[in-house]
């Protein structure tokens, strides 16, 4: 690179060229390692999944070209539809819940100062540092009728506690686990955005006679709206790929978590229990498509408020 720089060139116009060229090559070199990883572990698997999903493997027939048969099969498959419906329904409840918890916590922490506030901020964030596997496991223990406190407290009052992992209640059991696990992380993002607002804005509002609640709802919330959009997108992508928590709770949930509980669990079981890699790829690809579509629709709907892609 230094040789390029010292190479003498004639004419004013060419004088800038080697340096520009050097910068251009350097730019590519800086992104090269990422580009290799990106191609190898994102583009290639994506294309390969697309390719795999177009074939079908039968015991008698061998591998034959199936076209879009796997996709028609997937979207007509009651197992896939059931799982997809579950994660969609779950996102519709869990995302607003997480955002409300995170936003309220962040607004309160932005207002209150002192030791309690600092301590609370760390504690609320704490679950983020705990692997989802262990978060799910801990709540599974707390729900447990054999040694969990919920059952014990209920027994003390002579009532029967609901088993939060039963067929009818697992939706709520999981809702609690996920909210507990992620709200703190979202709280920190919102809190950081709140901290970066110039406090003279509040001063001006206060002089105009705005109450603390009005400042919170009319000034603070709109000013962190781009952080909220970011969180919504993350949370949407994460929830639609729901896997770890139900998978971990399955052994102690007495059959509430079926092998087709969520699309990801279904794809995993198809691939590793039944060795149907082609159909599993089609399921993965379909799920990816649904996620992409959902996020796309969402970003289109919120584009005016400013998103991470502006």
């Amino acid at each position, binding site marked *: *690179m230094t040789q390029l720089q010292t190479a003498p060139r004639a004419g004013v116009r060419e004088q800038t060229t080697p340096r520009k060229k050097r910068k251009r090559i350097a730019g590519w070199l*800086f992104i090269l390692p990422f580009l290799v990883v990106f191609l190898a572990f994102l583009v290639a698997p994506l294309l390969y999944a697309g390719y795999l999903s177009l074939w079908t493997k039968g015991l008698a027939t061998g591998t034959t070209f199936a076209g879009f048969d796997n996709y028609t099969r997937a979207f007509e498959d009651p197992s896939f539809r059931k799982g997809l419906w579950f994660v969609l329904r779950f996102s519709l409840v869990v995302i607003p819940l997480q955002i409300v918890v995170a936003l309220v916590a962040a607004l309160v922490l932005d207002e209150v100062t002192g030791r*309690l506030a600092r301590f609370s901020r760390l504690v609320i964030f704490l679950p983020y540092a705990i692997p989802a596997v*262990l978060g799910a496991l801990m709540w599974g223990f707390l729900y447990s009728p*054999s040694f969990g406190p919920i059952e014990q407290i209920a027994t003390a009052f002579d009532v029967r506690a609901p088993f939060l992992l039963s067929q009818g209640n697992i939706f709520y059991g999981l809702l609690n686990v996920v909210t507990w696990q992620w709200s703190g992380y979202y709280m920190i993002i919102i809190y950081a*955005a709140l901290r970066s607002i110039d406090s003279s804005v509040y001063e001006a509002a206060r002089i105009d006679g705005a109450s603390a609640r009005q400042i919170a709802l009319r000034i603070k919330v709109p000013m962190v709206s781009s952080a909220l959009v970011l969180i919504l997108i993350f949370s949407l992508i994460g929830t639609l790929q729901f896997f770890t928590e139900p*998978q971990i709770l399955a052994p102690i949930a007495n059959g509430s978590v079926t092998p087709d509980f969520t699309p990801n669990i279904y794809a995993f079981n198809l691939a590793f229990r039944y060795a149907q890699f082609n159909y599993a790829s089609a399921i993965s690809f379909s799920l990816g498509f649904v*996620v992409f579509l959902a996020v796309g629709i969402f970003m289109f709907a919120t584009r005016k408020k400013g998103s991470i892609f502006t």
Partner: protein
Amino acid sequence: MTRPRHLWAKLLLLAMVCYFLVPVWWLVVASTKNAEGLFSGKGALWFAGGFHLVDNLRDLFTFNNGEYLRWLGNSALYAFAGGIGCTVVSVLAGYGFAKFRFRGRNLVFAAVLGSVMVPLTALVIPTFVLMSNVGLTDTIWAVILPSLLSPFAVYLMRVYASASVPDELLDAARIDGAGELRTFWQVALPLMRPGVVTVLLLSVVSTWNNFFLPLTMLSSSKLYPLTVGIGLWEQLASSNNGGGQSLWNLIIVGSLVSIVPLIVAFLTLQKYWQGGLAVGSLK
């Protein structure tokens, strides 16, 4: 007017602290009990008669020829190799995208942003098939290599580099004759330190916490990270209810031990990540 300031807000905070601490508190308390205390059917949220934490720890580290320690080591290896690798790759790319104008930059960056929306778990099964074609499944590489990819980290570093590294400073270094690598290393990198620490922390955490990828890629329990290993114990414990009782104790104390390192890391690096996380949400 003797009403204390923010009384309701403080009560709300206390309630939240209780909610977020309960599972961890339970874990700490349960770790000190033996099987008898655990299944006694009362006092789940308070200590039982005997204090068995040390016994439990000894059992944990010696069970099945110390496979827990092995898993702990594996988790550390995957988290550091994957996390550091991911950070290096992402910081270089973020800096490249932010500070150089080259043909195709916007196109490539648009692809990177678009890929933030691709659910990474949808790639796990095809990646498994690709890896098994080249014989890499059930090796440490099957877990480490895919962990290097984080389009979001690249996005974060691009935003961070644009905001914290002034072009004039880079130009000054270049005029002084520094090569691009040296300019990056000595001028840009020190300015980007909080962003780098944030990305490092985030990627170490996500590799340490990863479950789906190692579960899919690894079949020999010698290579398992903690998350998959504890999941395996849980399956064993719940499939044989009678003999599983002692294993539940190990799972509980094992969970406690495995959440300690990350909590310590977050507490000690507080200053960095709290500032760094803000960056992603500002744009």
